[in-house]
């Protein structure tokens, strides 16, 4: 039962060109977009083109006891696709067809390799959108974003990936092909397996087809930039806007470190003297947008902020460009960028921002914080250098404290990046031992041999680096 035999068997099923064993290629699958992790070399890469082939691969992997690591574009930020125990990386990029856009049911049926932006470009001519918009939407695949339950900038009003997944086809650990959910708005047939597999991070099954909900594109949008002299006023404005019964499509925050960095890089006239800026966008039909924008402006002014609306499309694009430039601009300052996504109830946003500032000071680290303030999902971004062991030690301790602070405020370890490899050891902090046991029972039931994305979500042994 050698690996060579497994390779020969897989070549028989997939053809030689779809079983890659060249070390120079495999090395490129030893990591993903997650910073600060070691690299782990897989034994082989397979590139199936059909669900049936995925089923065959999983069966063969079971025979030879080889771990299987499903992978889309590898843009996740949790180490979710890193092959920690060697074995097989299963790339779903060849399954990249949009199978159906159903204008009566407002659904799209896609294969897992479809890129998020490709889907949005395909539905845009019909006046529809698929709202979840993670920063990686130009490259990330639908399979990966469902497996990780990706979020994005529009989460506050439009929700996250799980709110748009209506049905799934999944290959189970034994190679069986099953379907859950479908095109109906209502479906209470037994357990909600669609939600279980959404965000399961490749540990319970391999997603091979997805039915997605689409919604009509908003008619108009208005974008506003608000500047504040202190973090607390920004925090009060966030809760104040929601209290005034306005749910903006997005409500993004950038702290002083981020503002200064973005401005130095992009020079678009951000208020560098401010302690925080909020970028707020309301969208919908024109009358509602006018009324909601007025309410937003009033709340900001009441809290001592200054606010202006983007004058035209160009200025609006510039503001969003500034927000999107936040991470890359921060990343240019130091070689390694540790991006976290600890999330708190939005009423605790100010407290969390102050706690992060304090942690940065105590560990003598540069932390830029930006993120989706409206849904409490912050991105404290630690700028460091993974080659500096002493500094990395301080980074790890700071990250521990950020998680502790978020949990103490009734928050969660991860708002949108997932647990994966990077946060596995923190899982008991949030769920407790018994909570983790419930998860382990589910895992055991669906993947008794532990061959689907092992080493993720639950802390366990790692293989070769």
């Amino acid at each position, binding site marked *: 039962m050698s690996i060579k035999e497994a390779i020969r068997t897989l070549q028989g099923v997939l053809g030689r060109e779809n079983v890659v064993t*060249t*070390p*120079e*290629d495999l*090395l*490129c*699958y*030893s*990591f*993903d*977009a*997650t*910073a600060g992790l070691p*690299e782990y070399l897989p034994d082989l890469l397979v*590139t199936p083109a059909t669900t049936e082939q995925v089923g065959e691969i999983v069966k063969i992997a079971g025979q030879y006891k080889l771990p299987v690591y499903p992978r889309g*574009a*590898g*843009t996740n930020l949790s180490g979710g696709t890193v092959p920690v125990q060697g074995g097989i990386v299963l*790339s779903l*990029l*060849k399954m990249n067809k949009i199978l159906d856009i159903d204008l009566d049911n407002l659904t799209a049926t896609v294969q897992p*390799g479809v890129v998020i*932006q490709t889907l949005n470009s395909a539905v845009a001519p019909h006046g529809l959108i698929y709202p979840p918009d993670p920063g*990686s939407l*130009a*490259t990330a695949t639908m399979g990966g974003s469902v497996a990780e339950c990706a979020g994005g900038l529009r989460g506050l009003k439009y929700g996250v990936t799980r709110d748009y997944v209506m049905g799934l086809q999944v290959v189970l650990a034994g190679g069986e092909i099953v379907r859950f959910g479908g095109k109906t708005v209502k479906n209470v047939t037994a357990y909600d397996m669609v939600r279980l597999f959404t965000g399961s991070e490749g540990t319970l099954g391999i997603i091979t087809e997805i039915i997605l909900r689409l919604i009509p594109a908003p008619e108009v949008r208005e974008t506003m930039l608000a500047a504040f002299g202190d973090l607390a006023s920004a925090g009060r404005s966030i809760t104040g806007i929601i209290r005034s019964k306005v749910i903006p499509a997005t409500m993004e925050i950038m702290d002083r470190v981020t503002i200064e960095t973005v401005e130095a890089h992009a020079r678009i006239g951000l208020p560098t003297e401010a302690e925080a800026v909020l970028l707020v966008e309301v969208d919908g039909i024109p009358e509602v947008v006018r009324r909601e924008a007025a309410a937003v402006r009033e709340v900001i002014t009441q809290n001592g902020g200054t606010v202006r609306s983007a004058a035209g499309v160009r200025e609006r694009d510039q503001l969003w460009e500034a927000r999107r*430039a936040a*991470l*890359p601009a921060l*990343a*240019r300052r130091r*070689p*390694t*960028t540790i991006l976290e996504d600890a999330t708190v109830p939005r009423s605790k946003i100010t407290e969390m921002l102050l706690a992060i500032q304090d942690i940065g000071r105590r560990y003598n680290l540069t932390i830029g914080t930006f993120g989706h303030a409206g849904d409490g999902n912050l991105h404290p971004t630690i700028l460091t*250098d993974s*080659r500096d062991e002493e500094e990395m030690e301080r980074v790890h301790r700071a990250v521990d404290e950020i998680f502790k602070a978020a949990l103490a405020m009734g928050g969660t370890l991860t708002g949108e990046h997932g647990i994966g490899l990077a946060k596995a050891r923190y899982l008991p902090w949030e769920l407790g031992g018994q909570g983790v046991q419930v998860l382990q029972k589910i895992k055991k039931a669906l993947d008794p041999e532990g061959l689907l994305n092992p080493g993720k979500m639950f802390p366990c042994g790692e293989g070769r680096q």
Partner: protein
Amino acid sequence: MNRSYKLSDLEEEIARCMRCGFCQATCPYYLETGAESAVARGRIALAKFVLQGRIGYTPALAERFECLTCYACNVTCPCGVPIDRIFLAARAAMIRDGGVPAFKRLMATALKNQGLLDLGFKTAARARGLFFKPHSSGGLTPRFPLGLDLRRVIPPLSPRTFRDGMKEAATVPGAKGKVAFFTGCLINYVYPATGRAVVEILNKNGVSVLIPGEQHCCGAPLAINGVMDTAEQMARSHVDLFSGLNVDALVVACGTCGESFKKKYVDLLNGTPGYAKKARELAAKTYDIADFIWNVAPLDQRLLKEVALKATYHEPCHLGRGLGVTREPLEIIGAIPGLDFVPLQEPDRCCGNAGTFNLTHYDVSYNILKHKLADIAGTGAEVVVTGCSACRMQLEDGIAREGLGKKVLHTAELLALALK
């Protein structure tokens, strides 16, 4: 800015890659293959592993570093990693330390030796019946695999090169300026009409043109493939040749050649005594023809006559992303009366030619071209205007093979038509 092409000097630049994978969105090679080893993120990791001594130089590694050098990743990279420089440094390291395919060594010898290159092209032109058969499109297809794919349709080689057919000086009485024209290989051997058009439009705008006979290949095919020592020798000889001329500017009609003079020579000769300063001065007065005729010696637009054509424009990678000449060709086209311009959906997407890449990877190169051909077909244009003869060869190959019946013109040729 780090001007080095040594991998070990680029460690900081390599460390700046945050592995976000955003380069996947625009890399034409990755978009065809979906392979992580075909996109910047994977290759930069390989470069890092090489520096760490985890992998050695192997033919497989050399292959992983071959790409279109289209700079799409450079522009997309949010961290501003100088990706093209890292790739060139990796290729250079592999040339030095072995593992280089024989084809590249042969090419290096031919391009370095102008006499051999000249003889090769001229022999091929005279003996073309022996080696090529006519294609229904008017082009030629190879009879034997001469390093060319047998399916390929290439333009008939000119039996008389551009430089052979021109005097070394095309002066105009009362000229307002004098420039030297670096023709590049493809204009000299394959598209002499482009060269004549460049001289014509400059002369008609009161600019005299010198075409030094001793010029040869700019060395870009070598530098891009990592043959740095030879590329440096070629840089020196061109710096010697053109710095000695009493001219206001050096004009090129090819983005790749332009980049050699404007960027590569400066980098390659940085720190070479007696050359560094001259290379910088020459770079400062090098212009692409579209840039020169629009901004430096502004075209007298009253001279433009009607050209009743429906045209579109393909932006060459090295002219647009490389030299930053993006606006000028469009403004020139827009200034021509009677011309109906329909833009491409993705004017700056690589056509797949990429010089020698097209010879070594014909299939993937052609698949990349198919996106461009579909875009062109969608415009309904009868003429594709572009500023690069290599792109033109690629477009003409695809247009002939697919039977699209479109004509490809260099921007200078279109302008010459309007000035007739």
